[in-house]
């Protein structure tokens, strides 16, 4: 009984179910996902906002745990749904940041792998393009894009997180990807990569 088996979605759901009568049990869910949720928000809005939003997300999740329905999706998707709602309160700031980046084209939301990007492409131009596109995306499209690109969520998880039909995830994502590929700098990079790969 001491054997450790990999965590599964069912284990997660059971932990949430048990936390109804054993609130401490929710700590297991926190331990498993806090860093991931924090990282997701930190990439979008910066570390300071993430500190607050991630904490608030788990408090909300705890309070709403009775409403968690394992038949509708995974715990991870449910947490991303909650964090999406919290992030939406920062919608204007986020869009302002994209616009500022579009004009400046310098640093991203924070420093990191810019050097690596710069080696490959004219990073500044691409950043400006992406920032502009992200700022203009309809909110629903942007959430789908970021849950897939940053959160690494499956289409099913995105559908569960946002409470939208599965097919809508695919159509929104396709629309966004087409739009991004249509950006000149982005198109150039992809073309260059494909040439060097092929």
């Amino acid at each position, binding site marked *: 009984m001491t054997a450790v088996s990999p965590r599964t979605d069912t284990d997660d759901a059971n932990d949430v179910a048990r936390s109804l009568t054993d609130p401490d049990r929710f700590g297991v869910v926190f331990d498993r996902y*806090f860093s991931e949720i924090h990282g997701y928000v930190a990439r979008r809005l910066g570390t300071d906002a993430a500190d607050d939003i991630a904490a608030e997300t788990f408090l909300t999740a705890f309070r709403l745990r009775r409403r968690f329905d394992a038949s509708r999706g995974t715990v991870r998707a449910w947490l991303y749904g909650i964090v999406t709602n919290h992030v939406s309160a920062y919608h204007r700031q986020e869009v302002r940041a994209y616009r500022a980046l579009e004009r400046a084209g310098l640093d991203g939301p924070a420093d990191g792998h810019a050097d690596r*990007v710069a080696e490959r492409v004219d990073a500044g131009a691409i950043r400006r393009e*992406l920032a502009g596109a992200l700022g203009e995306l309809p909110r629903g499209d942007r959430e789908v894009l970021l849950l897939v690109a940053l959160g690494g969520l499956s289409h099913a998880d995105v559908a569960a997180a946002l409470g939208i039909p599965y097919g809508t995830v695919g159509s929104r994502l396709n629309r966004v990807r087409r739009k991004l590929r249509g950006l000149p700098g982005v198109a150039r990079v992809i073309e260059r990569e494909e040439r060097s790969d092929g």
Partner: protein
Amino acid sequence: MDELQLVREFFNEQPPPDPDVVSAAKARLARGSRGRPSARRLPRLLVRAGIPAVAAAAVAATIIMTVVVPGPASRPPVAGGSPRPASGPARPKQAGGLAVFQLPPGAAIPASAGPGQQILLTAARTVAKQAQPAPERYYVTSGIVGNFLRVGPPGNHYVVLEVVDSQYWAARSPKAGSPQLSQALYVQLASPADQAAWRADGSPATWNVGQDGELASPTGMASGWLHPLSVAAGPLTPMNALYGAQQFLVGDQSLTLAQLQALPADPARLKQLLLAGWSPAFGGGDATSFLFQTVPAVLEMPVTPAVRSALYQVLASLPGVQSLGAVTDVAGEQGVAVAYTQKYSDCGFEVQLKGRTWAPTPTFSSCSVQQVLVIGPGDGMPLAEELRYTQLPPGQTWSAPDGLFSYELFGTPYWTNQNRPH
């Protein structure tokens, strides 16, 4: 390289959260999740009282009609055990709406009569002789849970008792869901003074109780989000279902039936397993308090008789466990009892409405809570668990008799081939 990769690179990776941030967030969660130490959780996951669904449904119908408290439910016998007499808590006739809770004659909790080891070791010997029934489709544990809750407007708080039937149907097959079900049975007022305050409040039939899974504390409301409470009985409602094979929560671990039945019968090893994953940093009491809360639930699970005996030996090994001798429980049944009293420094949390979110604010005041475990003299199985304040936070009052704030009447757990209720 595709456009999604470019988006990922646009949003640079960030360092992991600072450990201080993580611990602050966890503390925030703990403040939101823990209303108060050692409170009986409502309704507990793996609790008892074998009330057939049919009987429960009939009871519900009775209450909806009259708002009078239900008659006693019959408890099914379990192989190797003797059926317990079915008698409910004393329920006086209602006058002017809601009845006032009264302890049955002789049910006041006596003072300690010395160390509790002897009672526990006797129980250990009794349960060791039990037969182990063959598994069927579901293992049903249930209980009648009573919680005293502080409700009412500021300046006119009063205490009500909500009584709930709680059932857990653990499926033997991992493919079948294992539902936990709950049914609101009835509401009473804790004392005549509470009845007067309730009338002054306009005799409401519903309240919002600022607690979830925890109990209101003597300092006011516990943390958690609002939970509606109604005097009307409700149907047997599925709260959630566990899926998969690991249906038995032992301490902090989820076990399959096979793992449960392979638990060691050595008390020291068993104690170690029960405490695995527990930390004093969790708050809510010391290791003895934790084991005192955990062990009765495990006694009700389909463990081997040798393990059940070892569980009592674990309790007997704990320092500070007292004997209360022969007692009458809240339901009027006779048993013997042991108790453990602990002082807590964080007895109360208040909640404030900030915008649309509840922000719990700790009000660290001390109190002492006594956990009483009543053991059936015949089969050595837990009969009832009663929690009460033996010392209130300074300046606070608690009107329920004997300082009682929560109890649970354990039924006899049983295997069944019946279909589950939901």
